[in-house]
């Protein structure tokens, strides 16, 4: 059934509110049937983008093309795009089946066809037999399922989801994440999902577009964004990162990152400019007992003191203070834990690190949003 979805192209989208720029030239292509997530802190422009696609606001400049047809200037009720809102936005004066039937009624379907479609759709979202209830009689998770059914029942080519799980508790959120993935797979509709929750984005998406201050920082498949961030903002917003900043220099064909008196071997690839930041994920770092010197010849190494050990169930997080800043090291929870206060060596291979341009502004923005 994967032929339902339709492609979406945003080109040079710009939107300004009074004095502030909400969107500053967004270019994005979503493939038919894709699950694309717009991820970013609040005020980064992801919701503005969604509202532009839905037609609730019009852009100052730029184009929106869905399945070959331009959308700018088309009123929202003629766009045939499903929208799921964070607060569900169910019609409180209508029962569940009337809510789900609403879009079909607008399309002039016969009563028998409407009844059948509503029943089928409620079954898909796992709410058989709930048609006769009012939205207020349902739990938050059930209401969001009704909202999903209502936004999908008219076979839209595109479904927009605006932080649909934001109002739910963690357990329910995870259940619904799986549900939404399943519905996406079964219906093959193109999904554009807005969230500020990076874990949610990683769990659900085919590709993620990371938004920051009205621009897209990076677009890519989930794993490549996590493994190969191109900017410091992406590295910090998506997962945890250890960052070393310094100046790049080259000696005997090897690039080094020099931070004061410390010198690190820089990974190959990437052209971040003279001032760079080296990013290493916590799970790519090793802790070594300084007594046993088993540091690899090509590995980077730092000495520090364990300031905290945090047990996270599936893994153990060690916070190491190296004097100027703290590093995070994730390891298996089953091994022997270093004691707080003990001296350790931190080691990582340059191949596990990524070089990105040093950008103080992006770093600040990421810190503020986390």
């Amino acid at each position, binding site marked *: 059934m994967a032929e339902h979805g339709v492609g979406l192209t945003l080109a040079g989208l710009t939107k300004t509110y009074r004095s502030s720029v909400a969107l500053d030239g967004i270019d994005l292509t979503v493939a038919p049937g894709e699950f694309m997530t717009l991820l970013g802190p609040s005020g980064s422009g992801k919701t503005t983008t969604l509202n532009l696609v*839905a*037609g*609730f606001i019009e852009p100052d400049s730029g184009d929106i093309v869905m399945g070959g047809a331009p959308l700018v200037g088309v*009123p*929202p*009720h*003629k*766009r*045939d*795009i*499903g*929208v799921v*809102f964070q*607060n569900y*936005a*169910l*019609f*409180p*004066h209508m029962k569940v089946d009337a809510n789900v039937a*609403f*879009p079909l009624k*607008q*399309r002039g379907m016969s009563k028998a066809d409407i009844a059948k479609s509503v029943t089928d759709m409620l079954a898909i979202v796992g709410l058989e037999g709930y048609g006769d209830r*009012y939205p*207020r009689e349902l739990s938050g998770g059930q209401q969001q399922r009704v909202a999903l059914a*209502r*936004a999908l029942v*008219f076979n839209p080519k595109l479904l927009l989801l605006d932080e649909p799980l934001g109002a739910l508790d963690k357990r329910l959120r995870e259940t619904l994440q799986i549900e939404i993935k399943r519905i996406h797979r079964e219906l093959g509709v193109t999904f554009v999902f807005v969230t500020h929750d990076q874990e949610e984005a990683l769990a659900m998406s085919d590709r993620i577009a990371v938004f920051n201050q009205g621009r897209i920082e990076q677009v890519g498949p989930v794993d490549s964004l996590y493994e190969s961030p191109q900017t410091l903002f992406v590295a910090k917003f998506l997962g945890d990162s250890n960052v070393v900043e310094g100046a790049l220099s080259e000696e005997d064909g090897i690039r080094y990152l020099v931070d004061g008196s410390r010198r690190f071997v820089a990974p190959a690839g990437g052209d971040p400019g003279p001032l760079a930041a080296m990013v290493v994920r916590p799970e790519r770092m090793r802790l070594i007992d300084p007594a046993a010197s088993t540091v690899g010849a090509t590995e980077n190494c730092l000495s520090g003191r364990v300031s905290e050990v945090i047990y996270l169930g599936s893994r153990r997080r060690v916070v190491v203070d190296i004097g100027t800043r703290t590093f995070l090291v994730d390891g298996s929870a089953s091994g022997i834990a270093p004691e707080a206060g003990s001296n350790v060596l931190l080691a990582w291979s340059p191949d596990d690190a990524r070089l990105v341009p040093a950008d103080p502004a992006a770093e600040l923005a990421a810190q503020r949003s986390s």
Partner: protein
Amino acid sequence: MSSGRRRSRWVLGAYCTVVGLLMLLPVLIVVPVSFSSLRSLRFPPPGWSTKWYEKLFTSPEWQLAASTSVKVAVVVTVLATVLGTMAALGLAGSRGRWVAGARGLLIAPMIIPGVIIAVGIYYVFLRWRLTESYLGFVLAHTMLAIPIVVITVSASLQNFDQQLIKASQSLGAGPVTTFRSVTLPLILPGVLTGALFAFLTSFDESIVALFLSGPGIRTLPIQIFQSVTSALEPTIAAASTLLLVLTTVLMIVFAVITHFRTKADTRG
């Protein structure tokens, strides 16, 4: 302790009864008087009859005044409800500094002393030749009734989730359908309350009506006033009783609406 509380409750009950009687008796006294057999306003009446009601329903003067009042009030109700609802919707959907100013302007007729409005209207309507005219009554009363509709509908809109409009649009409903099937049903209690008070505002209004009335046209309150000053007879009491019944019925309707609204709210 408990006997002291019981006593204070008894005192409070007695006090409330006295206040209630003080408020109601002067109004209710017209009811027995209207059934008096005597030609003067005496209480208690020496005998009973319904002749004053007969006179009321057969007198062309009273009939004309009553029909003018009803006609004006009905048209005012429709106009003020439509205009006031539209104004409230516009205010709720707008942002900016002018919103507060516009709201104040719309509610002004409720705050400015009636007699000042009446003099102003009289002065302007004289020039426009709208005094002693049906249109003049409708225009003036509509202006006086709009604020109450703006207030009641705005109150309803405060609980109205604007996202529902976006949801409705995204599901394929145009602006008209969205208003008819989403917005209106949800703000209907406010609209109906506003309509009810708009009707009462026009039906009870006497200051502006006093200025606009003349030999050719007068509303019920003015007719009562005129009768009191010319011939003091129980017809006035009969008319007052009928007004009392009408107002009470409308207030019961209002109470029923409010009851269902709070019930719907607590269920939600």
